[in-house]
């Protein structure tokens, strides 16, 4: 395969890893061609989930309320499952991967299926365009408004939660604004609310129409104005660049690279798609130091195992159970700062679980708790990826693992040769390799 290592690295970071189909299709492509192909986006809304009308809510009894809540939680799990299923099956997962990034950035906890779908579709539809539009869409998103209590933000009785997190976690970062800015900004967002039909509404009676002093400017600002002012600060570009670098490139921040990404954003009107494409087309992105140096998040790991094994069908509830057990429940981040990532994914229990994922998937254990019922194509793995010239072990290991130096781990080599070398079964080999610490890296 022509640009094999580069294409693999790109697919790891912009998607959920390389599957046998990718290998077949991109065999003779250059990595630039693959990047360009991936940026031809697919923004179909995910699924249509009935928002429902909660207007009669105040008349429900406690029991009815609890019952409805239970049903909502169950149906939100379906939305979660639909998203994961899409991550597994869609040919071009770029949008899904970028949406996953945004879900961590604009962290939100949602227990209603209509609101979950709506929130997710905002991320998917705005996530590759201008950052300003995305921020505004999030500020007007009912799920986000409720999560950050902006419903309670009213003239004369402000609730600063949303405004604070907007500035601290979504756009500027601490140290780039004052407490007074938070107070004043909150006044501009007063009345930004949602109704029980899941629609954004501005309640004029609650909106503060006075003059606000925000980040050195003054005027009768509304929420949109606040966002405009924030996006006119270079610090916002730096903050966003840092977030992008940390997620797509390296946990260890590098100021010079981050600066150049910030410049890109600043000069192209904060266009996310163009910025990401530029990063993925840069030579430095493919430096050895950035390849195989990040710990996969639980969703990346699980979806990656599915894609690499050509999984056609899997029990989505079981998958969600595993994802949650490893610390990542979609639509349920630990707090508004999202998922910290890196080493924080790993403790003795989550690591044991990660190393046992292939056993759980492919051994079809009869378990009361977890029946994944995986239908996969691992036995065909050699058909897809073995060239005549290649050593089967090397070919499969290069396909499965992302570290450039796995063959220097002599113990690993010994075990592979002893256990798998004897029967030369590529499926066994693949499963074994997926059960290693090296496989946790991407």
């Amino acid at each position, binding site marked *: 395969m022509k640009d094999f290592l580069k294409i693999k690295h790109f697919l790891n970071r912009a998607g959920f890893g390389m599957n046998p189909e990718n290998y077949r299709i991109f065999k003779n492509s250059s990595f630039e061609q693959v990047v360009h192909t991936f940026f031809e986006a697919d923004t179909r809304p995910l699924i249509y989930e009935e928002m429902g009308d909660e207007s009669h809510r105040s008349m429900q009894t406690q029991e009815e309320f609890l019952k409805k809540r239970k049903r909502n939680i169950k149906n939100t799990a379906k939305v979660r499952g639909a998203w994961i299923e899409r991550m597994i099956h869609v040919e071009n997962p770029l949008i899904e991967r970028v949406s996953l990034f945004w879900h961590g950035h604009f962290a939100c906890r949602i227990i209603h299926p209509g609101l979950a779908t709506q929130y997710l579709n905002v991320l998917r539809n705005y996530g590759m365009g201008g950052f300003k539009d995305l921020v505004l869409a999030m500020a007007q998103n009912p799920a986000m408004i409720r999560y950050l209590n902006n419903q309670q933000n009213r003239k004369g009785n402000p609730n600063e939660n949303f405004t604070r997190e907007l500035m601290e976690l979504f756009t500027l970062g601490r140290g780039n604004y004052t407490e007074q800015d938070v107070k004043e900004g909150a006044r501009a967002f007063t009345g930004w609310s949602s109704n029980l039909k899941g629609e954004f509404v501005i309640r004029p009676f609650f909106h503060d129409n006075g003059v606000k002093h925000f980040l050195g400017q003054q005027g009768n600002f509304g929420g949109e104005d606040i966002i405009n002012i924030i996006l006119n600060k270079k610090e916002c570009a730096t903050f966003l660049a840092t977030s992008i670098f940390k997620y797509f490139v390296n946990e260890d921040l590098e100021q010079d690279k981050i600066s150049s990404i910030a410049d890109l954003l600043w000069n192209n009107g904060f266009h996310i798609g163009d910025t990401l494409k530029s990063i993925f087309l840069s030579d430095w992105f493919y430096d050895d130091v950035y390849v195989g140096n990040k710990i996969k998040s639980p969703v990346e790991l699980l979806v990656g195992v599915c894609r690499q094994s050509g999984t056609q069908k899997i029990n989505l509830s079981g998958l969600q159970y595993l994802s949650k057990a490893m610390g990542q429940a979609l639509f349920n981040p630990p707090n508004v700062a999202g998922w910290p990532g890196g*080493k924080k994914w790993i403790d003795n229990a989550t690591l044991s679980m990660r190393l*046992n994922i292939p056993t759980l998937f492919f*051994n079809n254990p009869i378990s009361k708790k977890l029946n994944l019922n995986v239908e996969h194509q691992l036995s065909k793995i050699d058909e897809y990826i073995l060239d005549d010239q290649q050593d089967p072990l090397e070919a499969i290991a290069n396909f499965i693992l992302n*570290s450039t130096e796995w063959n220097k781990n002599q113990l690993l080599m010994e075990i592979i040769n002893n256990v798998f070398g004897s029967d030369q*079964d590529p499926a066994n080999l693949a499963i074994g390799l997926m*059960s290693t610490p090296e496989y946790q890296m991407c």
Partner: protein
Amino acid sequence: MDRRKFIELSSWISTSLWAPQFIKALDLPRSSSRSGSNLIIIQLSGGNDGLNTVVPFTNDIYYASRPTLAIEKNSVLKLDSDLGLNPALKGIKSIYEQGQLCLINGVGYPNPDRSHFRSMDIWHTGSGSERTWETGWIGRYLDSMCNGCDTPHHVLEIGDDLNLAMKGNDRKGFILSNTDTLEKTTRSRFIKKLAQEKAPSPHELTNYLYKTMVETVSSAEYLAEKSKAYASPITYPNTKFGRDLKQVAQLITTDAATKIYYVSLSGFDTHAQQLGTQTRLLTQYDEGLSAFVDDLRHHQLFDDSLIMTFSEFGRRVKENGSRGTDHGAANNVSLICGKLSRPGIYNPADGLEDLDNGDLRYSVDFRSIYTELLNSWLEVDAKEILKASYESLGII
């Protein structure tokens, strides 16, 4: 795939130690001398209703606010002239009478948050309601390089998911549901190979994964060995909580190199039909804890074991329309130990006349309790770990 082959495969995979050379199997202390004191934290998850746990049985407002939920004066297990315990807490009452319980009323923090997640995070991290911290107070204790803190299971949680309280920047607590299960999933076949591996990974994070794996296997073996050596005449109740505390006892009494144990009991979020649920849970709590305390007494370790029980918030004074209560604020905390400087009721309970929007006001910041535990019991610098100073209480 051939199932037999796969079983063989999985024993290799889930247990083997594929570790670079510079990571050696851990040398864990096997000495028989007593290692010192233990701290046991019991978390009641969901927001236990404090007012029905420590009952102000002479307070008219209490009875007026809870026409169906208030505990009858005659059923209350009286501690003094104004306060008594829920009738389910017979064992706790006995511990109190022996001067081995300190009850702290009105524990909370400024600007209380009534969300389970936020409030529990606040208790776990010590952040206060304005900030979000990503490390737990016990995690930061581990980071502080205390004596023994580099033992992987220096802090042990009994459960399935490691709580935020135990996550530091560099170090974390160790989690297991019980030592049997843990050992089964980490049986080692390659421990001898460890020292022979020549080539480390070029990436620091991959090495971190190997290190964690090595530690998990070593700790698993060690803890299972210790558990098996346990001997005791005490019978624990056959509840999950009872079994969890028994697991803790197995390790304390055999002198496992663990300093802090963390156990949870959930289900306290009683928005509806509170009486039955809370009685059942408090009974489980009382029976489990009593057996545990008896076990510690039997092994003469009760003086060296301090048990703290807390919940992420209390509940509202007035009952709701579903014979339950909604999320509140301040709650009580208990400290139990064979030897306390100030046993008994530490401070007066809230008179219920001056509520904060229907909720109890706090008078003791929970971080004062942490300060006490860190400074006086664990003998580390509380100020550094909690990132602020709080008044000490003089209980320990």
